[in-house]
């Protein structure tokens, strides 16, 4: 690992400085993770009095459980919709803000603040907008399209509600990154293409967009992580996984089965599945970042 040429020789102080970090990570990260891994191989009664080692039984019954399979599909639909909506909107707004030279800072201020709003509160705001009896959007849908809108009873409507609430919160994050990425595109490239007669649209798709691909990759990964994990607050305040399990995404199911239902084995197995998933995503991300470094350097 890289280190300084000139460094201090006192070892005791060095260990002392790193100690708080190590203590916290061991106590609240590694020990619980190990415990979770262990109990995913065990079967125990709800009171935790008897435990039995059952190898992969929890995992096998998990992947045979139609509710779990449904939850996987729900999570995939949810996170890909959130990614599509928030990335398209974020990229579009950033491109526009980057063109409107005189307004860039003002636009950023006006678009940045949803980042500060907690997912749970974003859920509350959208629930009110889309509320079947009081929400203005629900009323508009009913009057203009004759659609009987009810996210509290209708599965697909509930999904639309949580997708909108999550995407809305994420647009500003994606916007900030796309704008930074766009501002880093060398001006000379754009000018050269313009002199060769390329239209603004052509310049965007053949120059800017390919140069944005690292940003695009990073933003996609972050949006997926957000929709997998941090959307918990939205689900918990707005739908509680309902109606009929239609918004029961994986992270909410872990909480429900483990913390509410006290089904330790199954909940731990689900946690381990999620853990493997995030390890995979992180490893992929670092692989890609390394490749990016090789290209440029």
């Amino acid at each position, binding site marked *: 690992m890289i280190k300084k040429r000139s460094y201090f020789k006192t070892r005791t102080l060095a260990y002392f400085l790193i100690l708080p970090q190590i203590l916290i990570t061991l106590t609240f990260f*590694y020990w619980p993770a190990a415990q979770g891994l262990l109990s995913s191989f065990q079967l125990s009664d709800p009171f935790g009095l008897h435990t039995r080692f059952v190898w992969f039984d929890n995992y096998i019954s998990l992947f045979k459980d139609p509710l779990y399979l449904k939850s996987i599909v729900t999570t995939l639909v949810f996170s890909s919709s959130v990614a599509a909506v928030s990335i398209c909107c974020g990229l579009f707004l950033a491109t526009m803000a980057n063109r409107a030279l005189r307004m860039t800072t003002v636009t950023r201020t006006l678009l940045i603040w949803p980042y500060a709003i907690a997912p*749970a509160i974003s859920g509350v*705001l959208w629930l009110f907008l889309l509320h079947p009896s009081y929400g203005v959007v629900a009323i508009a849908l009913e009057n203009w399209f004759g659609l009987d809108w009810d996210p509290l009873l209708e599965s697909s409507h509930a999904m639309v509600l949580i997708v909108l609430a999550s995407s809305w919160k994420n647009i500003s994050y994606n916007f*900030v990154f796309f704008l930074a990425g766009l501002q880093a595109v060398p001006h000379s490239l754009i000018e050269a293409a313009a002199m060769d007669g390329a239209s*603004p649209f052509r310049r965007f798709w053949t120059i800017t967009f390919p140069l944005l691909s690292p940003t695009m990759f990073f933003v996609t990964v972050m949006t997926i992580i957000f929709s997998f994990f941090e959307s918990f607050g939205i689900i918990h305040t707005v739908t509680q996984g309902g109606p009929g399990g239609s918004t029961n995404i994986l992270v909410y199911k*872990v909480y429900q089965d483990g913390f509410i239902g006290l089904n330790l084995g199954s909940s731990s197995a689900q946690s381990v599945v999620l853990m493997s998933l995030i390890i995979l995503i992180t490893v992929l991300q670092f692989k890609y970042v390394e490749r990016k470094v090789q290209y440029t350097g």
Partner: protein
Amino acid sequence: MMVEKTPALDTFTYGALIFGIALVGFPIFYAIIAATLPIEEVSRVPMPLIPGDQLFHNIREAWSRGDLGTQLFNSFIMASGITFGKIIVSLFGAFSIVYFDYRLRTFVFATVFCTLMLPVEVRILPTYEMAANLFGPLQGVWDALGLNGLVSWFAGHDIQVKLEFSLLDSYAGLILPLTASATCTFLFRQFFLTIPEELCEAAKMDGASPMTFFWRILLPLSKTNIAALVVIEFVYGWNQYLWPLLITTDSKMTTAVIGLKHLLPSPEDPPDWHIAMAGALIVVLPPVLVVLFMQRWFVKGLVEREK
């Protein structure tokens, strides 16, 4: 950037921007309007889009009904505790990793770095158990060593020692588990690596101790990085949901973001959406203000964290 004159496209650009800003702002605009209306107006279909004069009344009502004073205080303690704790712990950690040489250095760094892959969402139950009894793992050691027998022999009668130290329903429980941060440590490490070697050499030549070097040179140089992280971590701490939900059962210890759920009208209640929206506005105000006023550092911090 404008290279040639494209009036039609420019009009479209500004039009789209204004439309986009209006669309993104609409949910909060709608909430502000609702928060100013009396109940007859807010439950009218469709709700009028002209503000009323009940804002202060609704805020007062939300404040007392949701016990927002206590909850905002809790949120504030939690958010600042997490911010301060994370930054101090990461600064010391990065200082140790960059400016010292010891055998476990790489291993320690890897240990901290891998916590990126263990968000609280994937270890809900065991982390809760850990917080419920911090000495749980030690109990196993105690029992395995047969220390109960030793203590009983020493005391002369039968004693069962139970090691227990719970973090449930406490500020320490809300804050401590969230103060380890791979991203902050990594950011400070990257920054320290860019600091010229000569600074440390000069300090050493002048006989400065490591801690003097840290407080007098490293800390002042890290000011902008710290400011950026203050914004990001304050918002992160304020908006925490799952962890406070698990660890607090006492309503006196709930945070504002979680408590807001109780202001939502259920189907049986009168549709008090104006109260719910007034409450929502109060709860989002502190982090939104922090982000808006410290926008420059915030954007810098966000974008740097990517690297």
